[in-house]
Structure formats: C-alpha cells, structure tokens
C-alpha cells in the first residue's frame, strides 16, 4: 500500500494511458462486429428502463390502493406483465450479444495469435516450451477477450449515474453535487490497486502455463516416467506449482475483496456523514423529513454505480494482465516471408524456376551461432561455401557437433544464417525463407506426425493429390510395406503418441511426405536412422531413383549410402574440411578415413566386447 501511494500522479496517468491503449487493442477485434456491439449497447437502456419502472411501480400501487381503485390495479398488472415479457426478451438479446461479441473476439484473437505463432522463426518458437505457447492461446486469449464485457457494464453504470444525477438535481442541486463528487473518490481508490492486480494476474497466467508445462511433460513422457518410477516426483512438481499459483490467486482475491470493502466503507462513511448533517438540518427545521428519505435513496443509487465501475475496472486489470502475455507474442518479429500468409493474401509463389544452368542451391560465406537463454553464444558454422546442382547427390559427414544438422536446417530455410547469402536456382534468397522452403523437401531424423490419418499426414498442404501420386510416394519411401498390413491402410488414424508405429515406420512416412511434394531439392538428415538393414537397402535404391533430376543432400553415416554420392563433404568444427569423392577422400582426408574406419571399427569393437560378455 505504501508503495502504491508513493506512485506519482504522472506515473498513474501514464499507466492509465497504457491501459487504455491495451483496452482498445483488444476492442479492435470487435470492429467487425460494431453493429452487434452498437445494438447490444443500446439494449443496455432496457436494463435502465426496467430499473426505473420497478422503482415507479411501488408508487403507482400505493397511490391506487389508497384510492381503492381496483381497475387501475388490474390495468397496472396487465401492463407490467407485458413489460416483463418484453424486457425478458430484450434483456436476453442483450446478454446474448454481449456473450457473442466476447466469443467472436476470443475466436478472432486466438486465430490471429496462432497465425502469428506459426509465422515466427523456428528459433524463436523453440526458445519457449510448447505448453507456454498453448497456454497463451488457450488461456490468455479468453481472459483478454473478457475485457469486452466491461464495455457493457461500464455503459450501464454511467447511464445509471446520469439518470440518478438528473433525478437528484431536480430535488436539490447542491446535494446532487455532493453525491456526485464522492464518485470520483471511490473511483480513484480503485485505481490504486490496479497495478498490483495486473501484475498478480500476469503472474497467475504465467504460472498457469508453468503448470501446463509440467502436465504436458508428464503425459508425453508417461512411458519413461513409469519405467523410472518418477510419477510421484512429477505429482509433487505439479502440486508445488499449483500451490504457488493458489497463493497468488488467494492474494489477488484478498486484494480485490479489500478494495471492494474499502470502497463500500467509504460509501457508507459518506452516507452516515451526510445523514448526520442532513438530520441536524431537519432538527433545526431547515429540511423536511420527506426530503431526507428521498435524498438518501438517491445518494445510494448514485454511489452504487460508481463502486460498480471501480469493480469492473479491476476485472479489466485481470484481463489486461493476460493480454500482456498475448501482446508479447504479437510484438515478436515474424519471419519476413510469413506476413503475406498470415494476412491471408495470395499464397506466395515459389518464384523459382528450376534452372539447369545455375546451381540448385548455393551457400556463400554462411556463418551461424546459437544463443542460449543465458546469452552464451556458440558459433556453429564458419564461412561455409557450398553448391549443389540438379542431378547431383551430395553427402555430408562429420563428427558429432560438427554442424551438419545446422547446415541442413540452414539449407532448408528453417534457420536464418547470421551472415552470408543463399542462392536458390541462381536467385538470392533475401529474407524470404519460405520461398526457399517451397523448393526444398526436408526430412529430419524424427519428423512430427499430426493426429489424423496417415493420408492426411502425408498429403497435408497439398490439395488435389491423386491416389496414384500418393501410392507412388508411399512406394518410394517403402511405407507401403507396413501400410498394406494395417487393417485401415492409409486411413489408419495416428494417435498423438503414434505408439503403434515404430520409429522406422514414422521415418518412412516422413520421407513419403517429402517425396510427394516433388521439390527439386531434397535434404535428408539422418532420416533413415531407425529403419532396419533390409529397408535401408530398399531406400538407398529409391534415393538413386530420386536423385534423377533432383539435387539431393544426404546426411548419413552408413558408408554404403554415402559412397554413392557424387560428392562428399567432410565437416569439422563448423567448417568444411574437405570435399571429393569417396575414393579421393579416403586417400586425401584423414578424418574421413578415420570416420570410415570407425564405422567399421565399431563393429570390431562390438565383437570384442560382446565376446567378453
């Protein structure tokens, strides 16, 4: 509290400006629904009308019963029933519109947010746990969208204040002014808590993502957790994170409750204070008793909306806390290429003509380094130069950590190099990594399968694929062998865990997915590491066929795969150590010879150790 009171006025003002900007940012999503919004806000007047009608009803009744006017009462009852019927419908319509707008904002904002997330560079995406991203879309967006409700509540309360003030000033303009002045006081008290509520809310949403992270790890790692008996560890972690979140939730609850109480306290204090002096005036004969009653009634009427406004605004703060987490993503820099796609403009054309004269892919002076969360930089690639033509197969070999996979990811446009240029079919790729991707099929060691059928997973993003094309791709990848055995064939649903398919089978599906795209350049990064020997031979054959009219980059360890390459690149510590054919390198490159020996040698080693066992 003392901290809060020290906040200078200008800072308070600035914060309120900031809040307003953010508020309008959220409400910007309502622009499309401005008619619904306008009608909804108009219908707020129904609520006000009804409230005035109820207040009036008693007076009418007392007047008529005193005159024993039974007819008037019957008439009044009939009228009231009509009013009730109409108000029920109109009020329902208002509530419906209010919810409708909230849901539409929720929908549009979450679709927009996922679009932004999908447009982020891979590096950025992988800098945060997926649970955090999910939580922002699934939990923070709805919380932010709830801000729109405030608009309705605020307009109702402001209208109420207006009506009450007009009513009150017809009695006594001075008293009305006193009542009105207490309003801003109540309002300002609420604002003292804003910053705290917002920070707490942001923290609570952050913890929500944290809890989700634990659960996601727990569910996706269930098999390992079971085998190592780690369940209780994760249960404790969940409990602890949740407990911390509960602590903040309780804190926020107590802060808002205290705020409300403080406001009620002040309202009541003013009422009691005013009553005392008004009654003194009555005792002195300056006012009549009737005026006192009417005044009290209206005083309460005018202050309740003020306190409601204050409450509404503290709810808005909760939404703002969540929207901070949404906006943080919205402000992240997208990949330059992706803008067109998220804006729903034309699908970017590849812009590349396969050009026989030029190298299919050329890297000039490419350097790249990884930055860890703590800010450590690790240089991975140093001034790489390399080119590949159509009809050529290039293999990349090297020790673990030599930068092969990073190079493959740069070639396929997944990572952006820190310096240097990439040319695809003779044209420089400047920033538009997605253009590069359109010309390349990239198959990593473990490729992601979406939940859905095998067919959907392979044809995803390619409308109008014929059965023949699909079967052809599956055959090239050798996936038809196991798919044919499945009862539902290509319609087999892959569950999230894909537990019924082996690693090798998933790798083959990934290859089929890439082959189907018929890209002029194909990059395989250890993408057959989990298939068995027989299948590996089958795939080597397929690759030879694929190499026709394509540029093929293969990262593999099996010498039988590597040696067929037209060229082999040996990498060491982020640099290209040597380039040449298998025979040439065996003689000329010591590291390559060693790698070959290692490959075979490990079998020897294996033999020796196995014998000891």
């Amino acid at each position, binding site marked *: 509290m003392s901290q809060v009171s020290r906040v200078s006025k200008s800072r308070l003002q600035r914060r309120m400006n900031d809040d307003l900007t953010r508020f309008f940012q959220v409400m910007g999503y309502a622009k499309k629904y401005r008619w619904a919004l306008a009608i909804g806000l108009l219908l707020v007047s129904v609520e006000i009308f009804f409230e005035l009608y109820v207040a009036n009803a008693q007076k009418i*009744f*007392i007047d008529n019963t*005193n005159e024993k006017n039974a007819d008037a*009462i019957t008439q009044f*009852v009939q009228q009231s*029933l009509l009013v*009730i019927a109409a108000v029920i419908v109109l009020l*329902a319509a208002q509530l419906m519109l209010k919810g*409708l707008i909230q849901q539409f904002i*929720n929908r549009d904002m*979450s*679709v927009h947010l*996922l679009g932004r*997330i999908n447009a982020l560079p891979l590096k950025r995406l*992988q800098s945060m*746990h997926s649970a955090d991203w999910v939580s922002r879309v*699934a939990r923070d967006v709805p919380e932010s969208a709830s801000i729109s409700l405030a608009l309705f509540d605020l307009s109702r309360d402001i209208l109420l204040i207006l009506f009450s003030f007009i009513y009150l000033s017809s009695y006594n303009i001075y008293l009305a002014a006193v009542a009105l002045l207490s309003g801003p006081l109540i309002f300002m008290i609420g604002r003292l808590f804003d910053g705290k509520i917002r920070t707490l809310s942001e923290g609570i949403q952050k913890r929500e993502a944290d809890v989700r992270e634990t659960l996601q*790890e*727990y*569910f996706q790692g269930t098999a*390992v957790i*079971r085998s*190592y*008996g780690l*369940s209780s560890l994760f*249960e404790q972690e969940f409990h602890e994170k*949740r407990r911390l979140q509960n602590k903040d*939730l309780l804190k926020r*609850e107590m802060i808002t*409750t205290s705020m409300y109480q403080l406001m009620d*306290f002040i309202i*009541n204090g003013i009422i*009691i204070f005013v*009553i005392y002096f008004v*009654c003194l005036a009555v005792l002195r004969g300056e006012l009549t*008793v009737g005026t006192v009653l009417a005044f009290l009634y209206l005083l309460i009427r005018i202050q309740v909306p003020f306190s409601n406004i204050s409450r509404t605004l503290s709810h808005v703060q909760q939404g703002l806390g969540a929207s901070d987490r949404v906006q943080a993503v919205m402000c992240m820099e997208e990949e330059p290429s992706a803008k067109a796609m*998220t804006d729903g403009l034309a699908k970017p054309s590849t812009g590349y003509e396969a050009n026989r004269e030029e190298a299919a892919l050329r890297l000039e002076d490419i350097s790249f380094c990884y930055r*860890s969360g703590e800010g450590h930089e690790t240089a991975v690639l140093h001034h790489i130069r390399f080119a590949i033509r159509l009809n050529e197969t290039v293999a990349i*070999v090297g*020790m673990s*950590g030599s930068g092969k996979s990073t190079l493959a990811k740069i070639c396929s446009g997944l990572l952006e190099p820190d310096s240097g240029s990439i040319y695809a079919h003779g044209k420089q790729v400047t920033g538009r990594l*997605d253009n590069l991707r359109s010309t390349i099929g990239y198959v990593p060691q473990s490729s992601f399968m979406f*939940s859905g059928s095998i067919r959907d997973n392979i044809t995803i993003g390619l409308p109008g694929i014929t059965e023949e094309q699909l079967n052809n791709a599956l055959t090239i990848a050798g996936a038809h062998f196991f798919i044919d055995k499945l*009862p539902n064939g290509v319609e087999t649903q892959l569950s999230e865990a894909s537990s019924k398919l082996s*690693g090798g*089978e998933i790798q083959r599906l990934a290859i089929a*997915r890439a082959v189907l795209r018929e890209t002029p350049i194909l990059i395989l990064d250890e993408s057959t*590491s989990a298939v*068995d*020997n*027989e299948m*590996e031979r089958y795939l080597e054959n397929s690759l030879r066929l694929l190499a026709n009219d394509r540029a093929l980059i293969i990262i593999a*360890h099996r*010498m*039988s795969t590597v040696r067929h390459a037209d060229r082999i690149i040996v990498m060491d510590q982020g640099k290209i150590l040597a380039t040449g054919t298998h025979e040439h390198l065996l003689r000329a490159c010591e590291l390559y010879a060693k790698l*070959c*020996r*290692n490959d075979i040698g490990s079998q020897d080693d294996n033999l020796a150790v*196995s014998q000891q*066992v």
Partner: protein
Amino acid sequence: MHEEEHRYSPYRVIVRLLRLGKPYLVLYILIAVAILVEVGLSIAYANTFQLIVSGVVSDEYPALVRSILIMSVIVVSMSAVFMARGYLGARLDNDSRLKLQDEMLRKVSRVRLDSLDKLHTSDKIARILESASIAQAGINNRLIGFIADAAKVVALLVYLSSLSARLTAGSIIVSALIPLMLLPISRYSRRWFDQQNRLSAEKDGIVQEAVQGGEVVRSYRLQKDMNERFANKVSEFVRVRLRTLSIESFTGSLTAIVPFLSVVYILGYGGLLVSRNEMEVGAVAAFLAASNLLTGPIYNLFGTWNALQWSISQAKRVFELMDLPEEPSGSGVAEEPKHDGVNLESAGFRMEKVVFRYSDEDLDVVRGVSLSLEEGRIAAIVGPSGSGKSTMLKLFMKDYEPSSGRIWWNGIDCSLMDNKQWRKKLALVSQTPFLFHGTVYDNIHYGNREASELEVIEAAKMANIHDVIMRLPDGYHTRIGERGATLSGGERQRITIARAFLRNPDILLLDEPTSALDNENQAAIQQAINRLMKGKTCVIVAHRLSTIIHADKIIFMKDGAVVEAGTHEELMLLGGHYYEMYQMNRTNEQSEWEVAT
C-alpha cells in the same frame, strides 16, 4: 455405448459430484452462515434508516446519535464478515481443486498405458486443469448457495405466512414455476456443454501440434493449413458455445426479471385484497419488502439443477479419466526369493503362451509366445519390422498386460509383482530417447534419485557423454530445451544410457538403435551399451549382426510368433529364416567393409 451413457447418467454423476463436496461440508456451512449474517446485517442496516427517521420526526438528538453509532458498527462488522467469507471461499476453492487434481494425477499414474494414450495430451490437460476446477467450484458454490438459500427460505416463510398465507403461497408458486418449467432444457444444455468441452480440448490440441510440429509446419509451409484447421475448430467451438450462451442469456434474463413478477403478483393480488378490505395497505407493503428476500432464494433453489449442468458435464470428464482401467499392479506380496541355488532352473525369464492384442482391435500382435532366458544371459530378438519385437519389450516392462499367458521372473509370476518394484529391476534404452525439459543433470538423475552428484558424473562417463556435457555452456546444469531439442540425436541417446547406468538394473531391455546416428556416435554409443550390458540379463531387439551372433539366445519373430530360437550356430544349421537374414546382412556389412579398405 448404452452402458457408457448409463454410467455417466446425470444422476450418477451428481452423486459422485456430491461426494467431492462431502469433505468440505463444515466449510460450506460456515460460509453459508457468513452469507446469512451478511443478509441479517444488511436488513439491520436498512432498519436503522427507519430508526433515524423516527428519531428525527420525534425531535430526539440522542436517538440520532445512537442510530449513527449503530450504523457504523453494522458497517464495520459487515466488512469483517465479507472479508472472512472472501478468504474462506478462496481457500475452499483453491484447496479443494488442488486436492481433486492431485487425486487425478495419482490415478493417472496407475492407468494402463494403452488406455491413457488414447486421449490427446491436450485433452488430458484440459480435464485436469479446466474440468476439475469447474466441477469442484460448481459443487462448492451450489452447495453453499443451497444451504444459505434454504435457511433464508425457512426463516422468511415463518414470518411471511404470519402476514398472509395466501400471498406467501402465491409468491412461492410464482417464483418456483419458471425454474421448474425450464428443467427440460437441461437435457440440451448438457449435451451442448459436452460438445463444447470436447471441442475446447481439441482446439488446444491443434495449437499444441502446430507448435510441437513447428519444424514440419515451416519446412512444408503448412502455416495456412494449420491456421485454417484451428480457425475451423474454433468456429465450431464458438457455434456450440453460442447455443449454450443462448440458454445462459435466456435464463440470465429470467433470473433478473422474475423477482419482479412476484412483486407484480403481490401488488396486484394484495391491492385486490386491500380494495376488498381483507388486508391493510401497511401489511402488503411489509410483505413486499420481505418477499424480495424470499423470491430470489426460491428461484435459486428450484433452478439448482439447471445451474449444475455445466459442472455435471465437466465432472463427467473428470470421472471418465478417473475410471480408466488401471494396470493390474499385483499384490506386491510376491517378493522375489533370494535364490540360493535351490531353484536355479527357474532363475531368469520365462514366457508362457503369451498373447497380446490391443483392447480395441481383434488382431493378435503377439501370438502365443513361449520362451525362457536364464539370468545373466543375453537374448536377441530379431525379425522383420512389424513382427511384434517392440511389443515384447513393452510386455516385459508391464506397459502392456498379456491378453493371456504368463511371464515369470525367477519363478515368480510377474503379474503378481508390484509394478513399481518390478520396474525398479529394469531399465529400457529405447530407439527414440525421451528427455524432459530441464537440465542435463536432472535428466540423468531421474535414473536414480538417491544417487549423488559423483555417481551422476560417473554414469555420464560410462555412457561416453561426459565430455560432450562439459563442452555445453553450463555443463551439467545446461537446460536442454523441450525433448532435448538443443542436443543431437546421438547425444540424447547417450543421456538416456547414462540414466540407465545410474539405475543399475538387473534386467536391461534394449531397443537397439538400428543404425546409430553418426560414425562417432555409433562407436561411442555401442561402447556405452556394451558396458551397460555387462553382467545383466539382457533382452535386445537387435539389428547388428555382431550383437546377434554373440547373444546367448536368438529369437526369430515373424507375424507375432516365435518361428526359430536357439544359438547362432543352431539356427545357421537350421537353414531357415535366420539363415536367410544373416546371409543378406552379411553381404551388406561385407560391402561396407570393402568400401573402407
């Protein structure tokens, strides 16, 4: 399907939901009392106005001061009660929710893996985070409201019937009628809530996949597809949400207006009575004032069922998770006897006519496998892909239960052994290493949580990964990203081997990397695995000839059955499947050998 519907009929769900509320009954009553005190205080507050007016009218200054003092006391105590209720309510919701969630997680740890895998991660998370919260908060609020409302109704009924029995009966009927008329809506609202909950989890699932499959999304430019997929799902969600919203809006509007209906009734009928001189105007006014307090609670009481539908729908999702079939955990009584040479024959593994099929399929994946392996020996399972080799490992892990048949270890039926005890003896090194988000150290340490730092480092050294770790920016305390994203495949593999070292199991299950990841890794991993195998009973799904040849027993599987078993020499003499496979692989490896020389 019918059985399922019956099991989660709203009445059964509500009974179980009530059980969730039972432990907090005392708190419910306490909070309800606080609510009643608040009501009492606000009535007293209104009455002091009366006191003041009469004080002013009769020109008494002391009465005015006294009333002002009373008012102040009431205001202060109202705040105190309000704060207390806020605190209790928040504590109740937080604690009860956490307890339910803890319980769900504990339950999940016992659920059969294949049942659990049928639910998408996002669905399971939604059940724990959302469904549990809403179900528990729903029952908390409803029960508190029920207690408080019931108390109000009882108290007011006595007072109001003394004023006018006819008016009382009438206003009860008026305010109870509409919620009763709305009861049939509950069928629809429940169905729509069910859909809404399911769709909500599904849309989260799309986001999760778009992020976890971020690499594929980018390299195949699937952004548009993912965005559309998500937009469609969200639109579907919103469509259903609008249905539930229309019900909520309608009932919300009724809740706001209906109290006035009873006012109209009282005024109309009361006015009639007055005009017939059957009642005093003052009595009608007094009745009107108090009836405001009656109609709300009556409306709520009769509307309880409809208001509970949202919680019932969510509670159903909680109970569905809680009701998933558990792993048969064994009694835990059967402890492995310290075999002292008496029954050495039964030492080791034995499988007896083991059959396995997935619960939702009628195709046997493992078909009547019988085999035995002595303690300390190595068995290599070989065969074409899809022959059920990996399923065998899952059966040993007790991840899957045999549909029929038995597995024995040292003469004890495995199904009788406690799962945790049993898994303590095992370590699995799989082809697809799974790493957790966290540090390298944690990931190894999970192997044996009692192990010291030195032991962790020792295990890493044995797994040939220590040097790699030391080169990482923060050594063992480097955070490795989701699924170990910052490490190479071979490095991830070696970390899981280090984890297995730390566990030091009796039995090692190994899904041999068919072809390790790169040349250097291959040697390093093979060396680590060989060290790990030393002195242990090993079951290996094997691909490398060198591993296979030197196994004590080779088991050749085809289409879920063991077709050949024996040593390398025996099977070569047999000249069957194994012989064929060996010849083919040998020429292959031979050719690699030639390449290098």
